[in-house]
């Protein structure tokens, strides 16, 4: 598995897109810091960008890589390598290189600005952890989509829909349901609804850490009152891990049954 990971990773490190992604975050980091002049504010702005953009990039990149490496996968399948190793390796290669672009792209400007001397270091680290989780989750989901759809156009379509659903539509539906059922107690409902969307979950997690009640909204407030900041934090992290492992498990299960 580690060999496959190594080669997928190398392959991606040579591709232009990894650098574009890296340079984008580098530019974003520098611009935000030097326009805002405040690390904490920059972290909040970054959160808003990361929470929408990272899933999108993870999804698109994942689908693209999977389809592009189809022949390579077939080559590997004929070699004495376990199927689960091939797919886990490729998955970790993609997710790993995307995470690296994110962490380095944002890390460099923040370190240059003097992150280590600032109080925001933990907030910033959490932001990167959440970014990494979102990459892992959405890459795994996109691999699932690509594996079940031979047709590339369909695969891309579903992948973009998936992103749109979690980043935009889900919130709309959630809000709508809150308005419709406003006469009922909705604490538990909104808690569960937040857990079921990794994007919302990440947002709540960061806001809990930042402890900005003004930005937290209803769900954040419910989260905080229900769990308290500390256990809310750990439960969110646990849910993010589940969100990563379940698609990955499903990917391996499907890959073991598929004909190539």
């Amino acid at each position, binding site marked *: 598995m580690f*060999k496959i990971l190594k080669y997928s990773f190398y*392959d991606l490190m040579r591709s232009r897109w990894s650098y574009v992604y890296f340079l984008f975050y580098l530019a974003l980091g520098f611009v935000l810091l030097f326009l805002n002049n405040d690390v904490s504010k920059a972290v909040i702005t970054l959160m808003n960008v990361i929470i929408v953009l990272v899933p999108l990039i993870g999804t698109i990149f994942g689908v693209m890589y999977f389809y592009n490496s189809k022949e390579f996968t077939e*080559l590997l*399948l*004929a*070699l*004495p*390598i376990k199927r689960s190793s091939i797919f886990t390796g490729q998955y970790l290669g993609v997710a790993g290189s995307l995470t690296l672009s994110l962490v380095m792209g944002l890390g460099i400007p923040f370190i240059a600005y003097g992150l280590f001397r600032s109080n925001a270091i933990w907030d910033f680290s959490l932001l990167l952890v959440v970014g990494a989780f979102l990459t892992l989750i959405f890459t795994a989901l996109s691999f699932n989509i690509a594996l079940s759809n031979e047709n590339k156009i369909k695969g891309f379509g579903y992948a973009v829909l998936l992103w749109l659903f979690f980043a935009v539509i889900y919130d709309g539906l959630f809000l709508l349901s809150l308005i419709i059922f406003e006469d009922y107690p909705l604490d538990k409902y909104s808690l569960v609804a937040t857990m079921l969307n990794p994007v919302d979950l990440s947002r709540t997690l960061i806001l809990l850490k930042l402890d900005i009640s003004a930005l937290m909204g209803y769900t954040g407030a419910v989260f905080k009152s229900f769990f308290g900041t500390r256990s809310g934090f750990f439960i969110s992290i646990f849910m993010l891990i589940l969100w990563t492992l379940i698609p990955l498990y499903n990917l391996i299960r499907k890959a073991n049954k598929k*004909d190539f």
Partner: protein
Amino acid sequence: MIKIEDLHKKFGRNQVLSGTNLSIKSPGIYAVLGPNGSGKTTLIKCILGMVIPTSGEIEVEGKAVKKNWKYRQEINYLPQIANFPGNLRVFELIAMIKDLRQKPSQDDVLISSFGLAPYLNNKLASLSGGTRQKVNILLAFMFNSPLIILDEPTTGLDPAALISLKKLIQKEKQQGKTILITTHIMQFVEEMADTIIYLLEGKIYFKGTIKELKERTGENNFDHAIATIATNFENV
């Protein structure tokens, strides 16, 4: 070597293999023939474990194929479509496959016999179709394995490379290996194959030597014998 028992494979509603039985015991060159869509590639992919059979048993070198991957250590495979990660250079790909298989390889000999030396530093995406096929062949013959499976090996090769390929196959045969080839070029089959395996509608219609085939069909011309096999044979 290879034992296939009552193999069935369905893709959706499309029944590709229906009760295929095959046993290959002695080394030599076996040509798997049949019209388009007769299940040649599916059969080969079942042996390789790339396609998972609906039912039936396959054994390679005495080991069951199902849920196993170690037996592929004994197989060299040449896929029909030669497409590799475009970002890699040729020598990097060779090094990678060597690293993944961890077996001694004879890549140097093959690089010189197919004239690949000038391309070693090129990226795979920039190679022509024929050169890519040569790389494909190199990867398939690089290791010493008792079973070699070639899916359409002649695609895109120039005459010189074709001669090298034939020599290579003959050499492997002399070393006592089993070589399974699918192709649509009958001249190649006539020249190379010891045994013909003819697939039709997912069943093995005929298995025997070229001479036997000619006798059975009453045709002297090999091309015609193959063409009439499907129409004239009721039972084998």
